[in-house]
């Protein structure tokens, strides 16, 4: 898809109250364009509840229903049931942070996924709670500084996209703010599928990750190029790598050094050699695990990974 073919209408007001260089607004703008505005957004407590702006104004020009932190997916199920009853084909989209997805929102998410409710659940993952001022979440990577892990997080993240694969839902994909066209196309494909769909977008957050605010897109690319974030898409159980991750998996492209990614962020600046080694091991395991799930490419893919 060419950029010139993308929807021109804007659904997110430029000049809203997000931080400069905010990955969430960029991603939301892209998602709403892909949906051409035919969506109801359900938003639990997160950065977006703030940057949409205070009543009586709003920076988002589709219907938005704010809900409690734990209940995004369930609220969306209720809205969808009502719209189905009314015979309306509006996409009901959850727009949640990683806290509202990985942690407090996980139960409602899993429930709605298991029921197969016709919802598009999107997690913009900035790998911490930024609304409350940068605390660790279940999505925070090993070693990252946050205000509840001052010396670096001691645990690796859990992986909700994998968990969603295990739910057997018809669509699971990852995307990155570094590749907005890829994101746009994934939303378009997800829109065509019925049932519960899960999309997770890596959202490098300048104040939370401690990098300059003009580097958001670059950071989103570097995360993928270094293998730390893996782009994939699973449609009806058929998993494939996409974009740069695909080139890496097929051995057409060398991964960038992980250190380049880690050390360009203040949250990792204190890491020791051993800690970096621990992250490397985690990343390799992740690739191997995913590669095993990718049909056809298994051997070639596993063989070519090195970080």
């Amino acid at each position, binding site marked *: 898809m060419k950029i010139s073919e993308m929807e021109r209408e804007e659904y997110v007001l430029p000049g809203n109250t997000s931080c400069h260089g905010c990955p969430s607004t960029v991603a939301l703008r892209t998602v709403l364009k892909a949906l051409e505005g035919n969506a*109801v957004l359900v938003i639990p407590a997160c950065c977006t509840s703030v940057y949409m702006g205070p009543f009586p104004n709003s920076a988002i020009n589709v*219907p938005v229903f704010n809900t409690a932190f734990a209940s995004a997916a*369930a609220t969306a199920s209720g809205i969808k049931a009502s719209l189905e009853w009314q015979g309306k084909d509006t996409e009901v989209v959850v727009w949640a942070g990683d806290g509202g997805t990985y942690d407090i929102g996980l*139960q*409602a998410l899993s*429930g709605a996924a298991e029921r197969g*409710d016709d919802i598009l659940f999107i997690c913009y993952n900035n790998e911490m709670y930024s609304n409350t001022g940068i605390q660790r979440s279940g999505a925070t990577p090993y070693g990252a500084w946050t205000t509840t892990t001052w010396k670096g997080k001691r645990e690796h993240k859990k992986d909700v996209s994998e968990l969603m694969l295990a739910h057997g839902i018809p669509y699971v994909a990852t995307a990155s703010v570094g590749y907005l066209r890829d994101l746009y196309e994934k939303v378009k494909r997800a829109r065509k599928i019925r049932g519960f769909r899960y999309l997770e977008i890596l959202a490098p957050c300048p104040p939370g990750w401690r990098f300059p605010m003009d580097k958001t897109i670059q950071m989103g690319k570097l995360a993928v190029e270094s293998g730390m974030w893996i782009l994939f898409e699973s449609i009806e159980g058929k998993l494939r790598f996409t974009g740069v991750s695909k080139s890496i998996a097929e051995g057409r492209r060398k991964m960038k050094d992980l250190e380049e990614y880690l050390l360009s962020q203040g949250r990792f600046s204190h890491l020791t050699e051993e800690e970096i080694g621990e992250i490397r091991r985690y990343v390799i395991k992740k690739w191997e695990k995913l590669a095993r799930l990718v049909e056809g490419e298994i051997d070639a893919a596993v063989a070519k990974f090195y970080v």
Partner: protein
Amino acid sequence: MYEVKILTGNETAAYAAMNSKARVVAAYPITPVTPVVETISKLVEEGRMHAKFIRVESEHSAMAACIGASAAGSRAFTATSSHGLAYMHEMLHWATNARTPIVMAVANRAIGPGWNIWADLGDALSQRDTGWIQFYCSNNQEIYDTIAMAYKLAEDRKVLLPAMVCYDGFVLSHTSMPVELTEFDDFLSEYEPVWKLDAENPFTHGNILPPEDFAELRHNIQKSHDRALKLMKKIEEEFFELYGRRTPLILEEYKMEDAEKVIVTMGAIGSEAKVAVDSLREKKVKAGLVRLKSFRPFPEKELRNLLEDKKVYVFDRAISPGSGGPLYNELKSALAFSPVKRIIPKIVGIGGIDVTKRTFERAIFERKVWIKEVVS
């Protein structure tokens, strides 16, 4: 057109939701309300109830889904009890501030630990500050009627508040009684929301609300409760004219004309209290009863008028530890400046202890506040 069926309180609630044309139901099982969930599931699967039934994974989600459904323009229903209601707490507040007129059946049950599945109004009474309208029923017909009346009230644009219809666990939830299954077509039409989520008319609901606007919202909710009280009388009349049943929404009086000693209570034990009043009168005690139906809004004025110059015995089937009976406390403050002779607290029926007419009699003849055994 109507039929009379022998139904438990739970089945009654399910039929009431069906005939009230609830279109989205989201619910989660918990004793003693589970049969409501099962019955609705069956009615929907058999195609008798025209609704979407969302089989959620928790009560928090049940309420969230109801809020979503209501916000999108559908009449929503759920049912819960005890721990389930406690688990919903956050979303109960949400439903009120979001102005989603959901109706919920609550089979009142104690909260653990010390797992106790029996009747105790403490679960609902501890939600009194969530802004929900609260009705307490004393028989199954009343459960049936009140659910329809609650929708009528809740959805009125002067009210727009959620409402819970409470009934004692097991005592009513599992006791079969004849219920007239009136169809409510003349009384309740399809839900016509004042606002709803609609992609063609986008607006943002529930974003950051500055202090002045928030105060306005909260004040409006209080005013809506005041208006609800006025509307209740109208709805009682309309219901009576249509169906010939005097189903109270605010309160019920029994032998109050010349009463000197008045029992005030709520819920199922309000039925037993009538038997107690008759028995007391045989013993030449001029007893009377005020059975409160609406705990929120609290009908302060009505109660004051009725209880002036009386000796009032308040029977609470709940306890607010560190304070006392919730109904007693509310009433005491409502009557603070009234010439009441005395107002005396009684705590009965906690954790499902059976409350008999003798319980009332003993409580009135003895000074003890707590009755912790079955008085047979």
